């Protein structure tokens, strides 16, 4: 009988990849089993006591209900054994839950040395990931089975980095760096969300994490890093314009946003705040990117952050080429 049972268990089809369950999404990082274990541990303890207490309550209500001819007994007002039991057992359970949670917390807090370093920059409402070679992209690509450290900062309000399949969620706050790490255990594409309400576009602030074999990851990184150099300068500039945050404030259709539109400004004079004029040429665009507050177009506020150190020389050249190409039709 026992043999039959264990045999049946051994023959049960083992799922090749544990996909999502009723409560939890797919497990795709080294934290996932631990996090899920604690979740189910607490869940089943709570379920057990919920059922026990509700069943006992119903039983007592029925068993000891008021009936004609039955006098209520005197209730005991003290029972030391019972009181010690219902104090000590919950304390032990709570300590176990704390220890399990604390172990997970420590594991998540201490970044292993030799991890792959990726910088994360969150702003309303997009993510930028910068790789050790200086390449910056809006999607996160990581190698599988290797610890990855994320050093995260926000340029404006509080955001939160959340990948459900990795079971990590960490606030990204302005004015300091928050670190987190993970080790992806399965190749694939996963969702990455902002999990801290950050304004109008919060629900659109999602991108993807692509987990690849180390070889494929290096190949992707080399290719993607040189991608801009393979394009004509104005197309490379357009990519930068879309990906590096210019488009949040500067339109290319003539409509003024937080900043002036870039359409048809090349070679024309701009009226500046506080009087004076400036012709939009290479030096003007360069200065506006690296030291935006030195010349402000009349009617706009001095709100643009400097891109000093955030754009490479070549990238500024591409952006100049892109702005040059924006002629009024």
């Amino acid at each position: 009988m026992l043999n039959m049972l264990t045999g049946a268990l051994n023959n049960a089809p083992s799922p090749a990849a544990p996909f999502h369950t009723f409560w939890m999404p797919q497990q795709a990082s080294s934290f996932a089993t631990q996090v899920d274990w604690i979740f189910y541990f607490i869940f089943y303890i709570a379920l057990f006591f919920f059922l026990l207490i509700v069943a006992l309550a119903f039983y007592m209500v029925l068993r000891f209900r008021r009936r004609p001819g039955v006098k209520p007994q005197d209730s005991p007002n003290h029972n030391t054994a019972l009181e010690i039991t219902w104090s000590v057992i919950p304390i032990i359970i709570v300590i176990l839950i704390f220890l399990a949670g604390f172990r997970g917390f420590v594991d998540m807090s201490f970044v292993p040395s030799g991890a792959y370093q990726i910088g994360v920059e969150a702003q309303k409402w997009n993510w930028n990931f910068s790789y050790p070679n200086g390449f910056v992209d809006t999607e996160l690509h990581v190698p599988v089975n290797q610890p990855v450290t994320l050093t995260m900062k926000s340029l404006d309000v509080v955001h939160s980095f959340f990948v459900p399949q990795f079971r990590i969620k960490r606030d990204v706050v302005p004015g300091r760096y928050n670190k987190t790490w993970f080790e992806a255990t399965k190749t694939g594409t996963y969702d990455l969300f902002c999990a801290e309400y950050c304004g109008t576009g919060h629900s659109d602030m999602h991108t993807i994490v692509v987990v690849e074999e180390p070889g494929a990851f290096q190949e992707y990184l080399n290719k993607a890093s040189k991608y801009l150099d393979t394009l004509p300068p104005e197309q490379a500039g357009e990519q930068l314009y879309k990906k590096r945050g210019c488009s949040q404030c500067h339109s290319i259709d003539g409509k003024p946003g937080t900043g002036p539109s870039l359409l048809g400004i090349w070679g024309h004079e701009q009226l500046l705040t506080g009087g004076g004029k400036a012709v939009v040429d290479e030096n003007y665009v360069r200065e506006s990117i690296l030291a935006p507050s030195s010349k402000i177009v009349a009617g706009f506020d001095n709100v643009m952050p400097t891109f000093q150190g955030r754009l490479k020389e070549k990238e500024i050249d591409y952006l100049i080429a892109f702005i040059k190409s924006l002629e009024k039709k």
Partner: protein
Amino acid sequence: MSTPADQMANEPLNYITARRGLMSWLVTMDHKRIAILYLIATTVFLFAGGLFAMLVRTELIAPGKTIMGKDTYNEVFTLHGVIMIFLFIIPVIPSVIGNFVLPIMIGAKDLAFPRINLFSFYLYAVGAAFFLATIALGGVDTGWTLYTPYSTETNRFVLPATIGIFVLGFSSVFTD
């Protein structure tokens, strides 16, 4: 046959029948009557907060825009949170149940300061009025936590809402 009115007339006076008329309720200093005032007010806001919750769930029935845009949605879930937290959950237990039964349980005639008890109800009304003013001005979109720095950056009407929360805080402190 006796009508309910007759039955009431035969019973000894209680906190409902002792005085009549709207003014007898609005300027009452009886802890039970103030508890009833709070009960009515908090119930109204429970349903208002519930209405906003229904709007949130309706919007989320399908992905993308269902009945409202992003900014309206953000205002609606903020109002749901603000109303439920500050106008319902915080005041309802101490001001309704506490006001009504606590003096009876400890054998007191009433609260120590009945006038301040009534005053705290009107402060509650003033705080609620600030929230209504926030809605009338165009809403607030920060979520009920009003986290900085987002709440200091948004161009919505955070100030009337925070003044309302501040006033409601005094309503809680005074007795509630």
